């Protein structure tokens, strides 16, 4: 992949990008993802516990 070596603009941009603060919608995305994910994992873990593997 030759792209990284041939794009000095991107390198400069990565070095000196101004910080963009997290927007409320981004915080919501992160928060809801983690909340739903953890709830689902707990639900699946309970399922895993009460419905044993069939051999």
């Amino acid at each position, binding site marked *: *992949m*030759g*792209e*990284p*070596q041939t*794009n000095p603009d*991107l*390198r*400069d*941009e*990565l*070095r000196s*990008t101004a*910080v*963009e603060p*997290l*927007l409320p*919608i*981004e915080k919501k*995305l*992160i928060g809801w*993802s*983690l909340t*739903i*994910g*953890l709830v*689902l*994992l707990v639900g*699946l*873990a309970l*399922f*895993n516990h009460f*419905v044993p*593997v*069939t*051999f």
Partner: protein
Amino acid sequence: MSDTTLNHVHPQTTLAAPSITEDWLAVILGLLIFVLALAALANVDLIGWVVTTSVWNNLGQSLKATSKGYASLGGAGALLATYVALTVVLSAAAAALKRDVIRFALAFTAVFWIAYASWVIGNFANFAAVTPAEQQKFGINWSLRLTGEGGLIFAIVAGLIIANFFPRFAEAIKEAVRPELYIKIAIVILGGFIAVTVAGRLGLASSLILRGIAAIVEAYLIYWAVVYFVARKWFGFSREWAAPLASGISICGVAASIATGGAIRARPAVSVLVSSLVVIFAVFEVLILPFLAQAFLSHEPLVAGAWIGLAVKTDGAAVAAGGITESLILAKNAAEGVRYQPGWILGTATTVKVFIDIFIGIWAFVLGYIWTNHINATPDRDKAKAWEIWQRFPKFIIGFVVTFAVGLYLALGTPADIAKNVPAAIGEANTFRVIFFILTFFSIGVLSNFKTLWQDGFGKLAAVYFVSLFGFVIWVGLLISWIFFSGITPPLAG
């Protein structure tokens, strides 16, 4: 995997817009090999000439045709037949993708012979023999015990040497350095192999599939959110960089970062750069994680399989690492007198990875909707559209499902005299699957120029990847795999 993956990775050699995508080509080629293999059920052996390699200490005895019916070809003849067949078929595929066919065929010649030579070297008895009985058989008193699948490690190392010490040669053969195409074909074929493996244990297989759902939740809802937060908050990346990076690290490397980049309307170069980083880190994972799995998880084989599927990014690296892990763990257990049926660890790693892949399009749409309606919302902005979900759906998964369903039907739904021949028939297709694994590993190595990591500016990208992968993704993956797969062992062989 996105249809667009390789068109982004090799933009400079595109001659015209292809009429078919790489994903659909992988489905066609994988199904072609599968169907040809099934002709053996009608006593017509069409692909038994494909070459297979055994562990050796006499090079002349290392190669042979897969089927005894083609034994007269000898090892060299089978190897040559395999090379010619693959060159013709893949050159036709290159033509369909509107690539330069002559250039592809020449490059593929180099790729095939170097990759397969690496595989053969990896099968040398002092590298591959595992049990004391095997060592005795070959008259040797030491071995690295890498198993035959250790040949994949040799293939990736050969690719790494070319990428980092012979960059001009790497550039010359890049037309045929296509890990995504090779692994997609392999995964289509793998569906039939997994079907035959699980046919006698459908209860266990369905239990494993249900537990695979946890991988989807983990990758999309836990990993992504944490990596995005780390990239934005701790490393100060812009949204345009952080979203493809989070998808690359969390979901499925190359495909997910490109799908996400497209969905949030990021510049293509951002996704390409993230993808190159994903491939490089996948190399480290492939070289390290299977051996850690063998050392610490050999008594929890399916935890190991799920962990590899969750932790190793890019389909090629993950599925092939699942194969190496399976060989290493089966070998260690065999040395302790426990012989597990092969296919279950690889099947678990593949199932986990395929489950994760399925939702790339939906996740990209969700991100695209949020970005185009809430973050970069302007009246003239191109909004995310629902049809993009189908556009980004990894089509090769359709091939995987078809070969799995057909394989399962043939093994369970046909008369006994047909069903008993199904494993051997699909075994011939599986030999091709191994060859595509070898090509994948070599190609991943060739794409991994470590100089990329040391360039100014990219160190910060690599730092996010390193912190997320080794500080979080691997360990959470291990925890979840342990919760859902511990205590489950593959059936015993025989």
